[in-house]
């Protein structure tokens, strides 16, 4: 492991990634794997698993949550279990009826703004220590079929639906997105289960010709 800096945030996947990491970087003050090796670029088109836990995120729930977020300038999805991307790249997920997960684009400040603002009546902060993954490649759908009973084909990027389901026994929030005409998936789970989810998905992905992919090879997927 080579970590020539002192980050103040650690990925929930660190313990699983550290033995395999070839190169580290620091993003949003979180130590993150830049590369797992020369195979990263070849894995991504097949079944690449990437770590986007470094993104800043915050959550709130309660009957006043939507109005409170709107007052902070955060647009909220109208439908339950759906998501939207704001003009500045911020992801806003509506989990069920009155819970919201806000994930900043790189350099964004909405999460910090939410954490600093006092909750209003009927607004309850939800601490988020998620492991955030991206699953991409032409075998990504097959990977979900081997690890989850939920049919990911029902998650079209255009419809912007969201599913909370169980993947290899871990509760995950899943959405489908699109980049360059290719569908890929974003997953969020409780960080304490992240290592197990990561290790299991990477193992299944390796059977499909893919595996762990560092930030350098994720390219646009890490920016969206």
């Amino acid at each position, binding site marked *: 492991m080579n970590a020539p800096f002192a980050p103040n945030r650690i990925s929930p996947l660190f313990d699983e990634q550290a033995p395999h990491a070839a190169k580290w970087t620091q993003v949003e003050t979180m130590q993150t794997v830049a590369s797992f090796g020369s195979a990263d670029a070849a894995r991504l088109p097949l079944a690449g698993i990437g770590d986007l836990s470094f993104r800043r995120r915050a959550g709130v729930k309660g009957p006043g949550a939507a109005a409170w977020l709107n007052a902070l300038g955060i647009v909220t999805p109208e439908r*339950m*279990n759906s998501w939207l991307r704001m003009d500045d790249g911020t992801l806003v997920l509506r*989990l*069920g*009826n009155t819970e919201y997960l806000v994930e900043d684009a790189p350099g964004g400040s909405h999460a910090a703004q939410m954490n600093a603002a006092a909750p209003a009546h009927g607004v309850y902060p939800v601490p988020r220590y998620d492991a955030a993954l991206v699953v991409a490649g032409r075998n990504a759908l097959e990977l979900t079929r081997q690890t989850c*009973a*939920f049919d990911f084909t029902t998650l079209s990027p255009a419809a912007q639906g969201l*599913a*909370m*389901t*169980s993947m290899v026994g871990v*509760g*995950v*929030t899943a959405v489908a997105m699109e980049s360059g005409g290719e569908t890929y998936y974003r997953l969020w789970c409780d960080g304490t289960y992240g290592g197990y989810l990561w290790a299991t998905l990477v193992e299944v992905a390796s059977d499909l010709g893919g595996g762990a992919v560092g930030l350098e090879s994720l390219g646009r997927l890490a920016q969206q």
Partner: protein
Amino acid sequence: MKLMTCPINGTRPISEFAYWGEIRPAPDADTCSDDQWAEYVFHRNGAPGVKKEWWCHTPSNTWFIAERDTEKDKVLRTFLHGDDK
């Protein structure tokens, strides 16, 4: 595969759900007799029939009520608390 329908998240495998028992209104602890309280705490109705039960969709932590025929193990309907019309 057994399926259950969450009122918020739709139909999912039963493995995504936790069963939390029959809905049993508690007697008023300040006014009920010891026998009534003991009945509530220690006794359960094991007779098969249509019962209302607490279930939870665990990935989303959505609590809801399922009306289930325990004799036929058939879920008749599911709804959120307060939506029992």
